[in-house]
């Protein structure tokens, strides 16, 4: 029983640590790395059968996916704006 609680506690710690690392990566604009870490956190949350955590993390992954799309659009916009006609 004690061993089971220890395992559970260590999985929860892993989940919290992953979530925190992912948050920091996102703050540093390393969106792909953040997405990877959040996806790993989802796996841990699923193993813990924590539906609420899975839902919250999935929501974050979606927001990051949208941010990645916005980044790509921004880069396209910059390329287009810089394009000019020359004779």
């Amino acid at each position, binding site marked *: 029983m004690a061993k089971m609680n220890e395992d559970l506690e260590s999985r929860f710690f892993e989940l*919290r640590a992953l*979530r*925190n690392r992912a*948050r920091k990566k*996102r*703050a540093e604009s390393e969106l792909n790395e953040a997405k990877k870490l959040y996806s790993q956190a989802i796996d841990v949350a699923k193993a813990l059968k924590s539906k*609420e*955590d899975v839902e*919250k993390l999935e*929501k*974050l992954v*979606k*927001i990051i*996916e*949208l*941010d990645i*799309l*916005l980044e*790509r*659009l921004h880069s*396209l*916009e910059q*390329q*287009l*704006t810089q*394009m000019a*006609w020359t004779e």
Partner: protein
Amino acid sequence: MEDAKIAKLNASIEKLETDCRMFKENLATKKLDREDFEGKKVNFLEELRKINYEIKQLKELVGSRNQTEQIVIRELNSLAEQFQTEVDEDTGIATVFVEASLDTHFEIDIDCSRYPDPPYLFIPKIMDDFFGPEFVLTLKPLKNWSRKKPPHLVDIFKELEEKLVVFFQKKEEVIDDREKMAKRRKLIELARNAEQAGNTAEAIDLYQGVCELSKDLKDKVTYFRFKKRIEELETNGKNE
């Protein structure tokens, strides 16, 4: 449903990226006349803005917050009014900077994502060494946490700060052990030489020895000073 919308937006951007690449090539190889170029550029930018708008709309929808999440944000923002805090509203995690003395501060991450369960505090290793891992649990708001009526987060940090300030203000006599002090001086010198020679791992080992001795001597100022140096060296090592 949201996943399908994201996939659709992704496909639209991929198409736009391909078309823009072609457009760029055609411009470079003079396959476009001026009128063509101007017209297509305007169309691309219009399409781009349309997709941008759709993404932002979807982001708003995905990011909508329930009542509990709104309470957490309120709590974290009120924490930010009293402490220097970096709040991440999407995750319910924040980094709080707690001043223990004029030259010692700690960065503590607080994870409130399971609110109204008690928050989890990531206590830096450097603090653990002096206070022990159970230290956080002695803080009254956490010790008496109630899910039905959770205390304010700011109260946790007020108490934490108070304890740290008292700890750092307490003028404890540093143990007068000449032998250990001499050994420590030697270690500091060697560590600095190792640092100058670029032997970071060796310098960290030596500074570790300085910290151990400082702990034995109950010299917390020197202890924290060199622990910080170790952290800096480790961070620089990771970034190189």
